[in-house]
């Protein structure tokens, strides 16, 4: 009698030509996930991503807490981008409860979410650097990230898990000197980004290595349902900030960043261009923001939603991030469904890695802008 072992655990014959590699979960080149890779020499024959190591049941947890209590735990799937993951929840709950958000709060939300996008992208970029063996690119973004984290700390009081957005605005107003400080640090950050261009994106070895690897065509990108930087690097101009503007994005001056190539280089470059664009958005928002006013609409204790549902999505660091909230006349939501960009980008991993060389595996894998914890929720 033979028992069927789970994939990746089967024993294999030594003389077989094809070797199975378990990349992860205890592997320096994987996140909290496992890639079951079959290699023929140096070529990858098949790749089977195996997520689910950090599933925490966020969606179920949300059904036992009321609308305000849900805030701090819903940001847990991606704590580096906590403003952006709370954004759709707040928008959906505001729609359900019928809350108006003050104008100043909308601007503060945009600034915080763009700062957080940069914080997330720097973390992602540093890991991309070390995955390709570029240790300077590991250290620089980690260091520059501190500046932006300091800004967010001044805003919200926490370094990473901000829990700053609440239905009805933001938790508290900005400190008194926030605008000058923010402008100064964002200007410095823009200067640093130019240095990243010199040492990393124009590096001949990097270009040789990542250009033309893991090409995702425009049609495949649409058909596989990718979002965010993966979709935009394949030549599809789809930025939710432009297509379905929420809060005050329609008043702000920015471009959505699109590249045509669809290879790992383009996929790694779109988030970088997004960071430059985020700096523009922050500076524009600081200029247009009302200088005083309320930042939070007062809610009733334990607000109740009607028999209703709401779906809102935003452009997060990893693409479209949607929250579908259903209420049934109770103080808790009936259902909260999180639709994350990471999981949708992971789907194209087997297609991209098939036929690639083993050395391209980290370059393609991490260029998908995939955050395993968020994908598992």
């Amino acid at each position, binding site marked *: 009698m033979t028992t069927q072992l789970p994939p990746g655990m089967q024993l294999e014959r030594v003389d077989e030509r094809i*070797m199975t*590699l378990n990349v992860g979960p205890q*592997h*320096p*080149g994987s996140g909290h996930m496992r890639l079951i890779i079959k*290699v023929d020499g*140096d070529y990858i024959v098949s790749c089977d991503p195996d997520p689910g190591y950090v599933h925490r049941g966020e969606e179920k947890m949300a059904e036992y807490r009321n609308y305000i209590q849900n805030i701090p735990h819903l940001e847990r799937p991606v704590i580096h981008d906590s403003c952006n993951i709370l954004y759709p929840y707040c928008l959906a709950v505001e729609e359900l409860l019928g809350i108006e958000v003050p104008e100043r709060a909308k601007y503060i939300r945009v600034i915080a979410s763009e700062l957080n996008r940069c914080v997330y992208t720097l973390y992602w970029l540093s890991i991309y*650097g*070390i*995955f*390709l*063996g*570029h*240790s*300077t*690119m*590991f*250290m*620089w973004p980690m*260091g520059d990230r501190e500046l932006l984290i300091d800004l967010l700390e001044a805003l919200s009081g926490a370094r990473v898990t901000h829990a700053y957005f609440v239905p009805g605005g933001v938790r508290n107003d900005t400190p008194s000197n926030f605008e000058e400080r923010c402008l100064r640090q964002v200007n410095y950050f823009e200067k640093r980004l130019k240095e990243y261009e010199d*040492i990393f994106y124009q*590096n001949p*070895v*990097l270009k*040789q*290595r990542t250009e033309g690897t893991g090409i995702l065509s425009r049609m495949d990108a649409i058909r596989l349902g990718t979002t965010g930087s993966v979709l935009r690097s394949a030549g599809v101009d789809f930025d939710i900030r432009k297509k379905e503007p929420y809060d005050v994005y329609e008043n702000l001056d920015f471009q959505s960043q699109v590249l045509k190539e669809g290879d790992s280089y383009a996929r790694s470059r779109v988030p970088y261009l997004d960071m430059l664009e985020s700096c523009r958005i922050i500076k524009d928002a600081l200029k247009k923001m009302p200088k005083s006013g309320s930042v939070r609409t007062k809610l009733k204790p334990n607000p109740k939603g009607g028999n209703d549902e709401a779906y809102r999505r935003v452009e997060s660091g990893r693409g479209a991030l949607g929250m579908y909230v259903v209420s049934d006349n109770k103080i808790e939501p009936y259902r909260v469904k999180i639709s994350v960009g990471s999981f949708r980008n992971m789907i194209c991993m087997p297609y991209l890695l098939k036929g690639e*060389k*083993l*050395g*391209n*595996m*980290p370059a393609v894998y991490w260029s998908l802008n995939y955050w395993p914890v968020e994908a598992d929720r």
Partner: protein
Amino acid sequence: MSTIAPKFRLSRFVASLMNLILWILVLFTLIGLPLVFIVLFYIELPEINGELLTPYLALTWIADPSRTLPIIKSLLQTDFFRIAAFPGFGFAALLAAATIYIERKFLAKMQLRVGPLYCGKVEGILQLMSDGLKLISKEIIIPAKADKPIFWAAPLLFVGTAAALVSLIPVAPGWVVADVDVGLLAVFAVIGFFPIITVLSSWASNSKFPFIGGIRALHQMISFEIPLILSLLGIVILTGTLNLTEIVESQQHYWWIIFMPIGAIVFFITLLAELERIPFDLPEAESEIVAGWLTEFSGMMYGLVQLGSYVKLYAFAALFTILFLGGWSGPMVWPPFPQEIITEGITMGPITMKIPGLPLLDQEMLNATLWFVIKTVGVIMVILLPRGVFPRIRIDLLLHTGWYKLIGLAFVNIFIALALLYAGVLGPGGLIQ
């Protein structure tokens, strides 16, 4: 009342003193006495005033420097000293340790970090020692299905081969462990031994990631050995010798890097690949294959491989210095030995001591060593630099670089050397005889 310091007790004080004396005695017996016997075994005992200095007069050596210095002098002449200490392994290991420290501080400065900071109070200078102690104290774990004898032997063989490479390096005129006439050929032979160790250890560990790493290392080393050898042929053609000492002596006026810059560049790139340094660290690419062929090594086995690779780094940097940068040749900067110490003696208060045995080392040798170390450290710094600038290269690009570009450039270098020879710029009657 706080009890930070216990109350003084005479009995405890005496006990601790006795403890200290016991440890001193134990250490002296375990380390000191064998060392003394090794020294006595190797040195030729000198004769002073018609009296042979036997070990029975050992206490008089300590009291009288005129008797100690001849002993030290004759120790410096022994093969044991050359292999273990000065041009050999001790010197190389010292420079390798310095290299690790420099690398960490230097990279930290490039990457806006501080590097090792706390261990040893001053800029983390003892960090390496603490790392070494940590590695020694760790448990050595060997995979269950590993081929144990070969797996155990691999780190030792690696260090031994690196040391063999060091033994061929002349540091100063006359100061070389093995002065062989086919020195350069011996260097090639030793370099050719490294991929064998790598493949043996990766195969013996019986694990997937080391296996891939070992195969990668084999590809890399074999495809880079050919341009490595070809890039040095120009020098052999122009000097007409394979002896490394004679190659250094041929560069008294002009360094070979002036006439053969292409050869130097090719040699430098192949050197990076042979040392498995970034951008050519594919056999140890941690994001792809964990740690490559080092994955299953643990504890001091890993420490030995690291020691070996840094000794190898020193040996290659020294080889670059010898072949292209003129080795130890350089202007005399070392101050001459103060002659009045010999003629008038050292005055220390009321005592005037005359020491006939001085100087231990002549000025020329010290100057040569100084220049050699300066140049080698300069080359090592340049070898460390790409780690902060480049990402890792891919295996097909690496092979492409090795087989197409570097071999072609190496041949161009040989033609340049031949042209210089036939045009009469170099060779007999030219700038360099």
